[in-house]
């Protein structure tokens, strides 16, 4: 079989918004969707300074745990029409990002169990030569989180906490992403 080597990654650079902006891309679901909420947070560098030229990109299942518009179509779509599960948010001058979405359902772990509700996240920025990957989990899913194979694979609660978004009191969630430093976010190699 042919084996070709992959094209190398490069940084998005400081002017990523020219090419990667889509109208309302931060709305994973339309405003007013039942159960929808904002996930917000800041993207921070190793000095704790905001990263104003970053992109947070998310991919998730629908509330029934289906990837309705995915390839291959592994299960029938159950999330209603129009739910793509893909979102993009540029960070602002204060490093802030925000995505309007709904909580994904649980997805099988491929080994007879279940994963806790989660979003897969790519972070791009000037100064990142390759995307970095994390997951966003939800603090109010404690029981599911405690059985999640990915969270369980992490060394300690401090590491897990870097991936768990906390309710912010107005129905939304908050999670800061720290690229570097004492409280560096856990990033994954996929």
């Amino acid at each position, binding site marked *: 079989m042919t084996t070709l080597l*992959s094209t190398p990654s490069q940084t998005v650079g400081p002017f990523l918004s*020219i090419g990667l902006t889509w109208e309302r891309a931060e709305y994973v679901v339309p405003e007013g969707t039942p159960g929808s909420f904002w996930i917000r947070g800041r993207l921070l560098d190793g000095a704790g300074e905001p990263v104003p030229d970053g992109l947070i990109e998310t991919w998730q299942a629908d509330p029934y745990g289906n990837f309705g518009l995915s390839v291959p179509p592994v299960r029938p779509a159950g999330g209603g029409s129009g739910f793509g599960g*893909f979102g993009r948010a540029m960070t602002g001058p204060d490093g802030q990002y925000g995505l309007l979405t709904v909580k994904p359902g649980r997805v099988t772990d*491929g080994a007879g169990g*279940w994963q806790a509700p989660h979003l897969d996240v790519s972070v791009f920025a000037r100064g990142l030569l390759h995307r970095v990957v994390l997951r966003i989990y939800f603090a109010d899913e404690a029981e599911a989180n405690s059985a999640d194979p990915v969270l369980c694979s992490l060394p300690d609660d401090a590491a897990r906490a870097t991936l768990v978004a906390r309710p912010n009191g107005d129905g939304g969630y908050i999670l800061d992403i720290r690229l570097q430093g004492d409280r560096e976010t856990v990033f994954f190699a996929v």
Partner: protein
Amino acid sequence: MSMSIPPAEAALPRFRRDPAGTHPPLLSPDYRSTRLRAPLKAPVDLPQRMTEVTGPVFGDGLVHADDADLTRGYAEEPAGQRIIVCGRLIDGDGRPIPRSLVEIWQANAAGRYRHDRDNWPAPLDPNFDGMGRTLTDDEGRYAFTTVKPGAYPWKNHHNAWRPAHIHFSLCGRSFTQRLVTQMYFPDDPLFGQDPIFNSVPQAARNRMIAAFSLTDTRPDWALAFNFDIVLRGSEATPFDPERS
């Protein structure tokens, strides 16, 4: 309590890891912006499950034919050398990736981006926004018409200049295949001093350089450059007697 695995789950595709020497190290101190932004802890292995091996599918209405022609949409043509950039989006097994989103952005012919934070004294072009997008066809092919971007100075080190380049964003078929890169032009004399180009291990750098194509050059119209983009190929499916 055990739960049965949906048959489709067992048949999910998996994507093989790129060998060492493919991508730049996140911490590449010659590129100064990496120093405070590169994570310093080793990444944790994330086995590929459903979320990692699926990805968005982009419908027909998403892009228009004109979105792939950066020389149109304004009163006049942009200044500069008109070029065609075309190629195929394929995976590491040589298979085309059809109906997949390709996004590009670039500086104008003078080396200036249309962006609030680009303020070096080269002229903006009122007829050029530097943004293009398209879906690959059934054979994974894409083509853009644009102008050759100019080189430009930046503050990384004394007398630092970025070689001419076009930013490419690829979604592939799955979250795992997602890639952002830059396409360079052949024989650029600025390669040697550019820490972003040189952050990639030497043997892999030529995979970021387009090739001039007389075949695709359109007579009396535009020079053409070929740039094939390779995303991660499939992991060979392991034989599992439990599931066969």
